[in-house]
């Protein structure tokens, strides 16, 4: 990165650049390895390997995978909570690793805040729920006076459906239900005027009857606040409900990506097919081939070349153990990393 492009950029200039070619956020070969064991150990866990994805303005992208697939690591890399081992993250065309000063980092973190999985432990229990929102406003929008901050806090509470905001802002976390607390999480993120919210399994800890409300909230936020959302989940049915595009991860690799409807209607990768078949759907009769699925996602320690799904794959061929499959385009905007998958007939 050259010196001129350092620092928060002029929003208008940024927008015009983004409109031209750049998606809102783009990663190139993003990789994160963790060293395991003592200092003499040569074991490395490949949590995320060579992930190249993009998120456009006002787009909801679902990142789907089992636990241990690396989806949360991706979120933490994007939030700059981890440094990548290799690869780059471009935000509006600028490498985030060029953000070094406190001012730059604060700006980026305001643009790309995170909402956490567990609403019971992610909100400080000793403060009123207004605390987190007010503190975010103080940090990220210092030009607001105290009256404006209160107004803005009330506004974001109304947007996420915590009404009447006057009463809600005064509550302590223990006075709120799980669904309300998760809305506080979204209010905190919204207060900083974000462009992209990283939502890491925001509904998995909530009761079924409350989930729909939070899923609808995400869809509304895109309409009302024009934010993009990276929705991380293991529930592919909810991904279909909210997302425009789905990215499926397995053992640190992106194995399939495409428009939500297409991926669900015509899954190309055998892993996506497995995920889909595992979703319990009372509206469907149980499938005939209902047998316990063999195997579990591997821990990717010092991997060798080859497809990481091959041990569980029903259609594996010789090539799968020799060559790591790359993402190939198999339909319009639809690609999968599989040697066996075939393209849509043209």
């Amino acid at each position, binding site marked *: 990165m050259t010196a001129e492009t350092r620092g928060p950029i002029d929003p208008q200039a940024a927008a015009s650049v983004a409109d031209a070619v750049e998606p809102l956020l783009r990663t190139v070969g993003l990789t994160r390895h963790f060293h395991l064991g003592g200092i003499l150990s040569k074991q490395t866990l490949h949590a995320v390997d060579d992930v190249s994805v993009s998120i456009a303005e006002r787009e909801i992208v679902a990142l789907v995978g*089992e*636990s241990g697939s690396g989806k949360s690591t991706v979120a933490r890399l994007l939030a700059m909570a981890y440094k990548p081992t290799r690869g780059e993250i471009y935000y509006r065309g600028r490498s985030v690793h060029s953000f070094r000063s406190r001012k730059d980092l604060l700006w980026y973190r305001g643009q790309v805040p995170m909402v956490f999985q567990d609403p019971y432990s992610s909100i400080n229990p000793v403060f009123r729920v207004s605390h987190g929102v007010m503190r975010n406003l103080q940090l990220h929008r210092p030009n607001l006076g105290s009256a404006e901050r209160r107004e803005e806090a009330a506004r974001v509470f109304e947007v996420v459906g915590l009404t009447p905001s006057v009463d809600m802002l005064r509550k302590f976390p223990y006075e709120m*239900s*799980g*669904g*309300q607390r998760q809305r506080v999480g979204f209010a905190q993120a919204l207060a900083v005027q974000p462009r992209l919210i990283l939502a890491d399994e925001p509904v998995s800890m909530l*009761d*079924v*009857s*409350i*989930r*729909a*409300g939070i*899923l*609808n909230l995400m869809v509304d936020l895109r309409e009302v606040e024009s934010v993009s959302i990276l929705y991380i989940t*293991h*529930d*592919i*049915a*909810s991904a*279909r*409900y909210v997302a425009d595009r789905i990215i499926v991860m397995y053992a640190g690799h992106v194995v399939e990506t495409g428009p939500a409807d297409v991926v*669900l209607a015509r899954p190309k990768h055998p892993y996506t097919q*497995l*995920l*889909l*078949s*595992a*979703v*319990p*759907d*009372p*509206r*469907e009769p*149980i499938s005939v081939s*209902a*047998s*316990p*699925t063999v195997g*579990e996602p591997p821990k990717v320690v010092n991997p060798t070349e080859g497809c990481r799904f091959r041990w569980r794959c029903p259609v594996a061929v010789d090539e799968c153990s020799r060559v790591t499959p790359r993402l190939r385009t198999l339909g319009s905007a639809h690609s999968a990393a599989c040697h066996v998958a075939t393209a849509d007939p043209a």
Partner: protein
Amino acid sequence: MPSPILEVRDLCVDYVTNSGDVRAVDHVDLSVEAGEFLAIVGESGCGKSTLLFAIAQLLSPPAEISSGSVIFKGKDMVQLSPSELRHMRWRDYSVVMQSAMNALNPMKSIEAQFKDAMAAHSDMSVEAMHKRSAEVLKLVGVDAVHLRSYPHQLSGGMRQRAMIAMALLFTPDLVIMDEPTSALDVVAQRSLMIQIKELQDRLGFAVIFVTHDMSLVSHYSARLAVMYGGQIAEAASTSLLFEKPLHPYSVGLLDAFPSIHGPRRVLTGIPGSPPDLARPPAGCRFQPRCPQAMPKCATRQPDLYSVGGSMVRCLLYEAAQPGRPE
């Protein structure tokens, strides 16, 4: 017609607190036949886990059973002494706890934990215990080499399987499961459910399965009881309840999760949050969240009405009762 192996009659459980008693389980009736799969579905705080603990006689203060009986194999478990209960636990019925991560002892190998249970409840020889441990572990599809493993060396799915193996050590007549799959992801979850069902078919034990996810049990349970605010809101055969849910709460639950097939529908969920059982709403407990609430719902507590094979606690079906005035 097999006779019920377990009958819960008019069971009430109170949590005794300084600011008054909180009734977590409110006049619940249930029966489970030998070899049956009964699912209990409800949100957190609806009393489903308390009900399980009351059935298994695992409640500890401040919770206490204030009325009712739990008849298991002809004995009222509420009246049994601790030593009488000890003879029944694990041999006649066993419990699989919610979180396998925390329910297994991290300091002991799987086999040591199996042996603990067998030594406490039988006088088997060491070889017999070893043989049985290997047997049950194979039964749930885990290789016997893992007898020597410690819990941290197993994946979540394998730990949960080990927990189930442990519950089957004596091939009990009833296995009580408290959300055994909640910490697993979809693929592992499905494979565990199929495993449980297979074992049940093979060994013939009855299962009470508690979960908050209705869709999970849709293909496995014979009967379903939906709990809300400490009460049974609706009870019916699973297929009937999915086909024709009667209680507005069951309807809401069924509409609350997205489908992967068919057109995308807007989900409404259920507005509001579950009742605070320390201050339950007057009248019907679901009335503050109910889209079909009527004025009388706020003042009158509905009974369980029998409507075409279902039992439902809702005033909408009061009129359907024979011999009742409109």
